[in-house]
């Protein structure tokens, strides 16, 4: 009897195993979209990347379609790997997906995303900032990545520390004092001499923000490297960063612990970053509330961050997906998104609509941060971000070696060029 029951138990277990195995196999052979066979479109986004009210409304039905939105926030420890895994496995792919500012990484596989021009994306182009729109167009001219928010940058500074150093503290006066990078470095020298504070955490941040504000970047649309050409924007940015390192105005803070401590203590009295950084600063150094101000950074503002929406090629109803995207990114919705989760709009109409309210709540004293970034957004240049920037870029690591490791700047530049070229050759680019 005992033997029999054991055998039946085993048979039962084996049967269950076979069942679950066949279930798993059938799941593999089903269509790639997560929501295949339902009236839902599935969106992957991460917290604070989309307008919460729009998602709530679309859950009851996307206007103009017979679909409902199922918004999911998968664990985003490594967003790009996660998305790649589902696309490579052709299983559990969302119908709409948010992608961060590194969209150019997907240009190599642009055929895995729907070209929104098919649904008349061009007619929406004039509503968005040119520079933001151009980031989402692939080199072959397909429109695969639709603008969500944008990240115009500015020069954050501690007015109280500046006052101690006898420097101008009024935003307009500071903006006027730092029209060029040499002027900015000069200001940093005075600050350093009188208070011992630095203007910025490190050279990588400075170098990246100069590049972010430049109409010319590392490569052109054809994939030719521009950094080796005489007078290239990259070499200019490099030279400015090297001068700043030598002048001692940068903090050489390479690790987050040091950086955060720098802002909290005032040892770092400035930063150059996009509009969204205000929220990070607020969380990091809440006690410095009221002493920060915003001034225009030298030359012109750049763009740092800001995400996009894409439609994977497996989407079961791309037209409805496109309808959701345009419906969720109108000027009114973007203004609402700013008020709810501080996403800075990518459509100028949202900024002039008058419904947005400054989210800084006195963090910048009497200064209106919204008005400030509105003017900055108008000066951001259009630029082409090449996919090669993401996989072959040793300039930022080498500039850090100059600052933290005391490496000779000329040798570091040559190393950066050689290493970048070596990787480019590996990927079949002739350099």
């Amino acid at each position, binding site marked *: 009897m005992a033997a029999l029951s054991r055998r039946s138990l085993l048979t039962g*277990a084996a049967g269950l195993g076979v069942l679950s195995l066949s279930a798993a196999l059938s799941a593999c052979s089903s269509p790639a979209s997560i929501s295949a066979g339902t009236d839902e479109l599935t969106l992957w986004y991460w917290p604070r990347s989309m307008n919460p009210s729009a998602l709530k409304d679309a859950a009851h039905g996307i206007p103009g379609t017979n679909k409902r939105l199922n918004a999911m926030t998968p664990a985003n420890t490594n967003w790009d790997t996660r998305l790649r895994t589902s696309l490579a496995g052709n299983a559990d792919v969302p119908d709409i997906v948010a992608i961060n500012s590194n969209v150019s990484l997907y240009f190599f596989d642009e055929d895995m995303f729907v070209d929104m021009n098919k649904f008349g994306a061009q007619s929406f182009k004039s509503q968005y900032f040119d520079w933001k729109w151009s980031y989402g167009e692939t080199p072959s001219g397909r429109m695969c990545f639709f603008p969500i928010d944008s990240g115009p940058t500015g020069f954050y500074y501690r007015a109280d520390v500046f006052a101690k150093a006898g420097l101008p503290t009024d935003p307009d006066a500071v903006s006027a004092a730092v029209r060029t990078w040499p002027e900015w470095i000069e200001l940093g020298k005075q600050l350093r001499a009188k208070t011992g504070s630095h203007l910025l955490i490190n050279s990588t941040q400075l170098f990246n923000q100069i590049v972010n504000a430049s109409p010319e970047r590392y490569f052109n649309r054809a994939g030719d490297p521009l950094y080796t050409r005489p007078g290239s924007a990259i070499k200019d940015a490099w030279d400015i960063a090297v001068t700043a390192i030598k002048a001692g105005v940068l903090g050489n803070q390479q*690790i987050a612990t040091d950086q955060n401590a720098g802002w909290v203590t005032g040892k770092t009295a400035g930063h150059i970053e996009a509009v969204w950084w205000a929220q990070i600063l607020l969380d990091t150094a809440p006690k410095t509330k009221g002493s920060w101000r915003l001034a225009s950074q030298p030359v012109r503002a750049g763009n740092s961050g800001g995400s996009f929406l894409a439609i994977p090629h497996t989407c079961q109803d791309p037209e409805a997906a496109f309808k959701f995207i345009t419906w969720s990114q109108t000027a009114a919705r973007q203004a609402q998104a700013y008020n709810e989760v501080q996403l800075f709009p990518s459509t100028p109409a949202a900024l002039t609509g008058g419904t947005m309210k400054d989210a800084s709540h006195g963090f910048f004293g009497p200064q209106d941060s919204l008005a400030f970034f509105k003017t900055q957004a108008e000066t951001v240049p259009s630029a082409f971000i090449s996919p090669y920037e993401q996989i072959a870029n040793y300039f930022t690591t080498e500039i850090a070696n100059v600052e933290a*490791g005391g490496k000779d700047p000329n040798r570091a530049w040559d190393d950066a060029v050689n290493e970048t070229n*070596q990787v480019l050759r*590996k990927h079949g680019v002739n350099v």
Partner: protein
Amino acid sequence: MTAHTTGVPLRAKPRNRPISEARGTRTRSALRFWPQYVSIAPFYLLFVVFGAFPIVFSIVISFTDWDGMGRMTFVGLKQYQYLLGDARFWQSVSNTFIIWIISTIPMLFIALVVAFLLHQNIRLKSFYRVALFIPNVTSMVAIALVFGSVFSDQFGLANAFLKWIGGSNAGVAWLTDPWGIKITIALMVIWRFTGYNAIIYLAGLQAISSEIYDSARVDGAGTWRIFSRITIPMLRPVILFTVITSTIGGLSLFTEPQVLLGNTGGTNNAGSTIVLYQYYQAFQNFDFGYGSAIAWALFVLVLLFAIINWRLVSGRKEDEFGRALPGPIGRWRQRNTAKKEAGR
């Protein structure tokens, strides 16, 4: 045949049975034991799906150029060719070995001493044992964050202490100087694994019969002589085990530098270990072909070092370990030694 329904593994069959008979019944007895096979099947199924398949597939990927989602292009040995000429890879190899040497040697030495002390008759023995083992079960990411705060260059506790005793100019660039980075990572490894190795040594010590110690004492041996002439030689297999596991652990070092310094491994890539470089290539540059090639290069290195370790620590020809090895290699060695003895 009826005696075999108890589920004794096939390998344990009496050896004196004629080979021909065993072969004839093999398929039939395999069928007879199906409940046993089914009950061990889950592990093997999971292993095939999550272990064997990825391992085999990574060999395939290492011969291709693949960004993780698009088309896979077969490139033959190109990834390996590139690897040989990649200065950053060789730098990661040397980083890994430097960190391994400056962490493993002090770690095993301290562990041995700690185990020897714990083996004495002291108070609160179990408290010390637990306390020593706790670092090993603490989350690596949490440890790295704490170490990041302690060893931070400008605001860290370590430098604050150095400045307190050595004046305002004292202090080490723990996380930006190439040597500072290596030493910090080595300290993390030592902190985490000393207790683990000490517990293993302790188990080895307890297996040594006290009669040997007693007779050594009777013969007039001192503590040092007992330690060097009895404890160390008797611990030889245990030491071999810890050396091999620390070699494998040291060569696959990843979390410590990644959390502490990010994917590039800090200033001058001083903290870029082989696995971190592999991760950087696969998950930051999305060059999965090259990442897999690095993984297999690491496999070859680990294999090489396991063999060297084994030779170094086991030393003599008539070592114990060949006989203790499982499976076909062990049997082959046994046969060889048997032949040699017969030849004499």
